[in-house]
């Protein structure tokens, strides 16, 4: 038995250092999004430094996995792509490293400091913003009749637009939209939602369309439901809709009204060796500079998080269409936008989610 255990120890000892060689593991969401990062960030970085980048499509369960890795004292990820809300949670849990924007991130070409260039988007001490995306609605142009929906409240109007809608199976965004369409002013939404009465009001509004809703849990669901004609309209991330409309040429159009802006970006896990941490920081410095962020928009329709990148957004690398009009931040699309409140949801998520799930099960 002893020999066996020693053998085991020796094997682990042999395997472990190999992983630290010139390799780094970057975790992201997979699909078209990872592909855009591969072409905009990973390939140029590998070319420049010779580091091999291993992709891991585990971002959807990243928070729990990072916590487990941290407890086991064996963090195998070097850089992780997460949404801002998860970054806040990871930062709170001490699982993500704190970032000093000005010393760790590249300044803009004109010399503007990184913290100014990212501005308000630095929503957590640990978060390095990468893109601005939005959750918005797409609708089937051939199934909505003569007047296309133009307002978020058309989602709640089953008389004018009969048929099913798809909404995410969680309270975030849905509650806000419900209140907006129930007569609550935009800047009062979170104050109302903080009260039990406000939560009931939102659920009561959602109740009016509950029978006509298909609830989704994966970002790919709504595009598929739209393509199948299962729903007439549905919420999802704007990049997914872009791909349905421009790449798959489905009869779908976007309803940008009351789109909810959200952020996605990088975090560096705590508990890395000095060497790995240095390399992760080097990668981050490279991958979030002005040019690289603008490059990503060539492959996917998400807006770069730096102000200085916006003018550099060009054409889609394969389709050759101008990307600027497809950005959620484009003035034409951003006439009526809604800003996701991270602080609010960090506090209220568990509470409202319990109520929301109880309501769903009713």
């Amino acid at each position, binding site marked *: 038995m002893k020999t066996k255990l020693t053998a085991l120890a020796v094997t682990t000892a042999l395997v472990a250092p190999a992983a630290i060689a010139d390799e780094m593991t970057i975790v992201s969401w997979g699909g078209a999004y990872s592909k855009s990062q591969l072409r905009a960030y990973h390939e140029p970085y590998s070319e420049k430094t010779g580091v091999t980048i291993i992709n891991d499509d585990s971002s959807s369960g990243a928070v729990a996995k990072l916590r487990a890795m941290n407890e086991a004292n064996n963090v195998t990820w070097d850089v992780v792509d997460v949404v801002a809300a998860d970054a806040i949670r990871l930062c709170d849990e001490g699982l993500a490293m704190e970032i000093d924007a000005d010393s760790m991130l590249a300044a803009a070409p004109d010399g503007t400091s990184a913290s100014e260039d990212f501005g308000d988007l630095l929503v957590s001490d640990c978060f390095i913003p990468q893109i601005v995306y939005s959750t918005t609605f797409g609708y089937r142009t051939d199934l909505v009749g003569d007047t296309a929906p133009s307002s978020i409240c058309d989602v709640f109007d089953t008389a004018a637009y009969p048929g099913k809608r798809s909404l995410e199976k969680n309270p975030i965004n849905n509650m806000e939209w419900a209140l907006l369409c129930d007569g609550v002013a935009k800047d009062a939404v979170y104050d109302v939602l903080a009260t039990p009465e406000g939560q009931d009001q939102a659920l009561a509004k959602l109740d009016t369309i509950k029978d006509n809703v298909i609830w989704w849990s994966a970002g790919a669901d709504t595009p598929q439901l739209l393509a199948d004609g299962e729903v007439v309209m549905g919420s999802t991330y704007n990049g997914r809709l872009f791909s349905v409309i421009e790449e798959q040429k489905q009869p779908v159009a976007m309803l940008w009204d009351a789109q909810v802006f959200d952020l996605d970006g990088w975090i560096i896990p705590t508990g890395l060796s000095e060497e790995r941490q240095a390399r992760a920081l080097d990668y981050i410095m490279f991958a979030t500079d002005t040019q690289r962020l603008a490059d990503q928009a060539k492959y996917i329709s998400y807006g770069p998080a730096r102000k200085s990148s916006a003018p550099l957004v060009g054409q889609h690398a394969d389709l050759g269409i101008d990307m600027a009009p497809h950005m959620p931040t484009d003035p034409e699309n951003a006439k009526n936008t809604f800003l996701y409140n991270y602080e609010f949801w960090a506090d209220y998520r*568990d509470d409202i989610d319990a109520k929301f799930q109880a309501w769903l099960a009713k």
Partner: protein
Amino acid sequence: MTDASNNGGPMLAADGTPLKKSLARALRLQKMRALALIAPLLIFVLLSFIFPIASMLFRSVENGMVAQTLPMTVVELQSWDAETGDLPEEAVYTAFVTDMVAAIDAKEHTKLGTRLNYEQTGMSSLFRKSGRKIKKLDPATDGPFKEQLIEIDKKFGDVQTWAVIKTHSVEITNGYFLNAIDMQRTPEGAQAQPEDKRILIKLFQRTLIMSMIITISCIMLGYPVAWILANLPARTANVLMILVLLPFWTSLLVRTSAWKVMLQQQGVINEVLVWVGLVADDARLVMINNQFGTVVAMTHILLPFMILPMYSVMQTIQPTYLRAAKSMGATNWTAFWRVYFPLSVPGIGAGSILVFILSIGYYITPEIVGGTKGVFISNRIAYHISSSLNWGLAAALGTILLGVVLLLYWAYDKIVGIDNVKLG
């Protein structure tokens, strides 16, 4: 006093040691050897199965965080009673600032905020935001702190905040288990959750009922298949067996998604029904994103687990028994019901246990096809593991689920008898 003395000394083995001792040593050696042989498996099971499960189960009661992060505050709060409605004394506030400064240094205060936020909404941002300001205070010189803290955040002037800290400062808590059965731990003892947050008991019931429905449909569909397989010539049976096993080689996600394509309103079945004219175009059947969809998809996925044990049991039933019964005047039905069926019950039992226990813990299929009314308790466990990070509650839910399974297993043993279960 002993036999040995009567016989003039102990019986000796060939090497001169007493025989009893020698035998004991030989037996001990044999036992050691047997243990060494199973040791790899034993250690593997211990390390990869028993230990993780035990540590996960322990999380359902473990609650050291409050007392560890705010040690002095917890001690000071001992003498304070929330029911008086008065705020704690200055001593508590001083202790709190001292604890917090240490916790902020170790970056533990936001963790504690997340932990307390499960119990009281708003704690997460209270700890995160006030931490930035409390960091600048010096516990030795800047007191008194009561006014200052209330100035920093008025929640520190709320009795509820301190009551929550006190209530959850015990090292071993029943709080997670109370949450798991739609109750909560309060200063006044265990109380029911507000009605609009009660969901878990309902999900437990639904999980059990639907698992039972799935098990029964598996029996109904699987029994004839197993019977045919068992009574066909071996070669044909083997070919048909591949059809039963084929789903095993296909990804679970693919099979579940295939049901989506089949059952949705613009799906294959509805299209055919509309084309045949059985269903009007504007009244297509809703067969997915509800309980029906979950039952159909899970029955399909779990069917092989029912068919295989039934098949192997039925193979051992001699066809001569049926012939004998019929020759003595039994009708087909009587022969089947009185002779064949009782003999096949062990197979049904084994299959049912497998299917039921598997389906109770199912997660991905209900998530994809279950909609709102077809989701199981495991979906909630997954939410608390991966989204809310409330692992304590997830562990409590898991422990209850494990308890329910063991209870049902015990009941099954009492009613049917577990030695009556055969896998072949």
